[in-house]
């Protein structure tokens, strides 16, 4: 069977969805709304790249929603304190990397299961943030929204940063030894160790990278509005895991591509707008998302059974 079978099926599903929209709801394809919709999905895409790395290395991170909110608020507070935009971005990235390092130490070097560790850090960051901000909306100073540029240019910057990242990550995962080490660790950590790879260090780095990417995602989200909400990351973890799994990244580790992640993200991101354009109520979004995750998992399960016997 084709190596890119899963990516192809997602691409076909996406094409069918867009085609039916083109036929039955052509006003879906107006240029400006499409660009706005794309821009609003870019932060999640960046986070999805990170979560894909984590899942490929056979771990999971459910704390990224809380990390995202924390990075956004840290950047917002830095900017409000009068520091330039560059400092705010740096603050978000450093905060993300530090939170990722906490997860990384606990998972890689203490050997704790990532699901429990990130569950605990999720609760910790989330509640620390609530205690700190009390749910207040944080207004941002001028010059932050769209990086101080016009909206069109700002949207282009956001989209191109995210897409460059996807392309770069896809290339690095295929061609750099660091990328191959992530696949090797996720496929079989013991075999990777015998082959001279340090799986602990690889896992640690993946979590730090995850935090860094969450910081970047938070920045790309921050510049899109004049204020920042302390709960802006809620639900991001599930959304990105869903996108990544739909895009063919195996939850059992070692398999998946960034192109699949991009396709999975686009497919899920279009479900809700498609519902509204087909004049269906949007309440079904979560149910459909769950169903899509299950279908993707079942497809993976059936496929691996076929190859096994």
């Amino acid at each position: 069977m084709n190596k890119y079978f899963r990516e192809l099926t997602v691409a076909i599903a996406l094409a069918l969805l867009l085609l039916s929209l083109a036929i039955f709801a052509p006003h879906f394809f107006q240029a400006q709304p499409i660009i706005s919709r794309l821009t609003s999905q870019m932060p999640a895409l960046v986070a999805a790249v990170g979560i894909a790395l984590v899942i490929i290395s056979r771990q999971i991170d459910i704390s990224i929603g809380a990390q995202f909110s924390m990075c956004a608020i840290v950047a917002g507070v830095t900017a409000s304190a009068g520091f330039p935009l560059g400092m705010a971005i740096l603050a978000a990235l450093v905060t993300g990397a530090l939170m990722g390092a906490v997860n990384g130490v606990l998972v890689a070097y203490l050997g704790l299961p990532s699901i429990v560790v990130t569950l605990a850090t999720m609760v910790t960051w989330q509640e620390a943030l609530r205690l700190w901000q009390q749910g207040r909306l944080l207004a941002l100073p001028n010059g932050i929204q769209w990086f101080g540029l016009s909206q069109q240019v700002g949207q282009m910057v956001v989209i191109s940063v995210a897409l460059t990242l996807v392309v770069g990550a896809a290339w690095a995962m295929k061609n750099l030894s660091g990328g191959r080490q992530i696949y090797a660790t996720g496929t079989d950590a013991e075999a990777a160790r015998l082959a001279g790879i340090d799986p602990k260090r690889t896992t640690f780095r993946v979590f730090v990278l995850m935090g860094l990417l969450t910081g970047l995602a938070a920045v790309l989200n921050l510049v899109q509005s004049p204020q920042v909400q302390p709960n802006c990351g809620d639900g991001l973890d599930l959304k990105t895991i869903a996108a990544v799994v739909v895009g063919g990244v195996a939850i059992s580790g070692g398999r998946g591509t960034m192109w699949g992640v991009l396709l999975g993200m686009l497919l899920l991101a279009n479900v809700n707008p498609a519902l509204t354009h087909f004049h269906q109520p949007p309440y079904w979004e979560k149910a459909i998302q769950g169903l899509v995750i299950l279908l993707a998992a079942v497809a993976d399960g059936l496929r691996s059974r076929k190859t096994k016997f």
Partner: protein
Amino acid sequence: MPSSRSISLKLLLARHEVVLVLVILVEVVLFQLLGRNFLVGRNVSNVFRHSVEIGLLAVAMTPVILTGGIDLSVGSMMGLCAVLFGMMVNRLGMDPWFASLAVVGIGALGGGFNAVLITRLNLPPLIVTLGTFSLFRGLAEALTRGAESYSGFPPSFLALGNSDFAGIPAQVWIFIGVAVGIWLLVHRTTLGRSFRAIGFAPEGARYAGIPVARNTSIAYMIAGAVAGIAAVILVARLGEARANAGIGYELLAITAVVLGGVSIFGGSGTLAGTLLGWVALAILNNGLTRISDYRILEQPVASVARELSGLLTGLLLLTALSLGALTKTLAVRRARKQSLSDTSPNLVKS
């Protein structure tokens, strides 16, 4: 050589349950000293009344985690069950007790759905229950169109959530029943023993003649059914059935189980541990709301009790996990050193 007494003391301290009892005692003393009206009959019964739902989920999650699985969908199952219960009583005019039974059955079916995907298709429990986590909540939201809620239940039903029976809150009796039932199942039956065998080594359990798929399915179906019970109790306590019932409860339940020393990899743990973990969390939640004389970040502790107890829960869980992992690595290292020094003179023999 350490004396035998210090060894037994060490063993006692190594027991997770003993440490938890100490934590609970410290909590009680601290909250009694710092807070107001903490150890008062009314408040003590409130501690339990308000945490029965999470206790139920934690107790039912224990067999699942013992098999090496996890069920992230129980909170969403509560939402779906609550909504279905409200619809049955309000729209169809069903008797609330009969509707309760129906909802528990639906919960078991939902758990069975998880189980089929996990055991028959060999899918990872994490991803399956993540899918149903989204699916069940989504169905609840779709059924209520995102906003509708159901209320106006008969007082005889609401009494389940708000009245006392023989001196303790009515729902605590149900909790005791469920907890005793699951304790008997886990610790006194071959089925319960098989849960740990499956979690310890699924292949080995299969070779030993244990019907792995069937027994694992039972654990998930129990979790679903108990989520239905928790939904009914929550609706009776709040007097309202909404799609957002039980949001985030699965995380609190898992926290209680892990805090109770049940291994997240499966294979080891006790129900007593889970219960103690749950009590520690429940007391923390309630105790902080009693502290009004002290301030943190210029706010009275009581007014930020929810955030603070969440934060402390997270830190407590991280500490418990790290300490467990550290003691394990140290013990392994020491054992290795000792066995090396013991065997080094006569290496040839081995």
